[in-house]
């Protein structure tokens, strides 16, 4: 596809950049002079430095080679006891996909240091029904526990020892506890670095006038707090790539910052979230008002109706929308999170949202009287009025 557009694609590893001579060097010996350089070096799975992390059967998932490695290991070793460390969306998707693929074949345990699954996306009141649903599907979810080490025999993982001293049987372990930006090339040429990656301005420009950067390797700014954040999600990566190209073509469009909007699907449940959770908003110093509303994927009288749940988080002082969370047993309602994102970017208040009218139809959405964005805003407004 890229080659068809007249783009030269070189499959090789970049070993060095000479920023003074504006030249890129690759391991195969080639050199590539540039007028402008865009760094999109991405990120890599973070493997916690705990004993046993190099045993056979300990996996991470980032790209296709990882998926192929996992598939081969499952086919050849036929593991029974699987432990997923971390209850973020990658971990939870792996656990649910494995359970779905072979419902009676695996005993799957998910271990999370915090008090709930998907702790960065959902508050506890939204995460609890997710946990209940997943446990009903046979996943064992252990929260508030820390992994001390991985144990093994003959170089192969056999167990996961918790800080309590308890050891869980494990013949396959997934470690998905976040990623780290790939910044070595940028560091080598002395680009200014932030806490979470290469520092860029709102136009993806680095501290070198001829180098731009974007995606997982750069530090983002949170749209709401204005603070640096990793923001390592596909959405910002794609938009930042396009934005850098626009900048080079003379456009003057600033990146507004990230809201960490994301989604995942586990069995028939879809989760989506954007902006700040109530917990994070409180940590950031906001006085928060929130509302949770149960809704329907279709009109209540239409066959096939599935329940879904929305939570909105507002700043009590400015009454502006700060975040939203959706837990849905149908896929379609989860896309309403994009409306929530748009409202946050537009600086909308709870009063603004009470007049939101959705495009509804009995077969594709709840009836207007059950539109949860409007209802949540009304409830929040009432809470503020009642003090």
């Amino acid at each position, binding site marked *: 596809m*890229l080659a068809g557009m007249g783009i*030269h694609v070189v499959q090789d590893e970049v070993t060095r950049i000479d920023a003074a001579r504006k030249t890129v060097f690759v391991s195969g010996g080639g050199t*590539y002079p540039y007028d*402008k350089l865009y760094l999109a070096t991405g990120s890599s799975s973070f493997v916690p430095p705990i004993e046993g992390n190099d045993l056979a059967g300990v996996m991470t998932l980032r790209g296709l080679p990882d998926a192929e490695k996992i598939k081969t290991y499952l086919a050849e070793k036929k593991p029974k006891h699987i432990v997923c460390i971390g209850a973020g969306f990658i971990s939870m998707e792996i656990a649910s996909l494995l359970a779905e693929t072979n419902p009676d074949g695996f005993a799957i345990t998910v271990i999370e240091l915090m008090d709930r699954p998907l702790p960065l996306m959902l508050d506890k009141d939204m995460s609890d029904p997710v946990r209940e649903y997943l446990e009903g599907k046979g996943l064992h979810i252990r929260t508030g526990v820390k992994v001390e080490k991985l144990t093994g025999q003959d170089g192969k993982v056999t167990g996961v020892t918790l800080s309590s001293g308890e050891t869980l049987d494990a013949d396959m372990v997934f470690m998905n506890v976040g990623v780290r930006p790939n910044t070595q090339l940028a560091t080598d040429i002395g680009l200014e670095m932030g806490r979470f990656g290469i520092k860029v301005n709102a136009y993806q420009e680095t501290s070198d006038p001829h180098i731009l950067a974007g*995606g997982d390797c750069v530090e983002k700014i949170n749209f709401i707090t204005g603070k640096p954040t990793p923001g390592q999600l596909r959405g910002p990566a794609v938009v930042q*790539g396009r934005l850098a*190209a626009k900048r080079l073509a003379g456009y003057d469009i600033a990146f507004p910052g990230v809201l960490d909007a994301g989604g995942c699907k586990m069995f028939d449940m879809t989760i989506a979230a954007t902006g700040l959770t109530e917990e994070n908003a409180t940590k950031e110093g906001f006085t928060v008002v929130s509302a949770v509303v149960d809704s329907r994927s279709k009109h209540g009288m239409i066959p096939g109706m599935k329940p879904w749940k929305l939570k909105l988080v507002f700043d009590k002082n400015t009454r502006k929308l700060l975040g939203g969370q959706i837990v849905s047993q149908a896929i379609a309602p989860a896309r309403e999170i994009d409306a929530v994102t748009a409202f946050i970017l537009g600086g909308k208040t709870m009063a603004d949202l009470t007049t939101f009218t959705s495009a509804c139809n009995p077969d594709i959405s709840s009836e207007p009287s059950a539109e949860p964005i409007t209802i949540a805003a009304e409830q929040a407004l009432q809470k503020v009025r009642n003090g």
Partner: protein
Amino acid sequence: MDHCSLFTRGGGVIDPEGPIRGFEKLRTTIKGDDMKKGERLVIVGCSGSGGPAAMMAKKLMPEIDVTIIRKEEFFIVR
């Protein structure tokens, strides 16, 4: 300045008190320094960000030379 005005073209002003105030530290370096015919854009990495950057660059500036250098055989990441 409201949030919407950050998306308009031509202004180039970042409100220091606005939602992207964390960006103001770095100098805006290349405004007015658009790429010209025959110039070379090299992109390192081709997954979530490098690919879209290359395609958009070629679409907006068909006369420039775009090269992507990537280590991986694959494009997909989660």
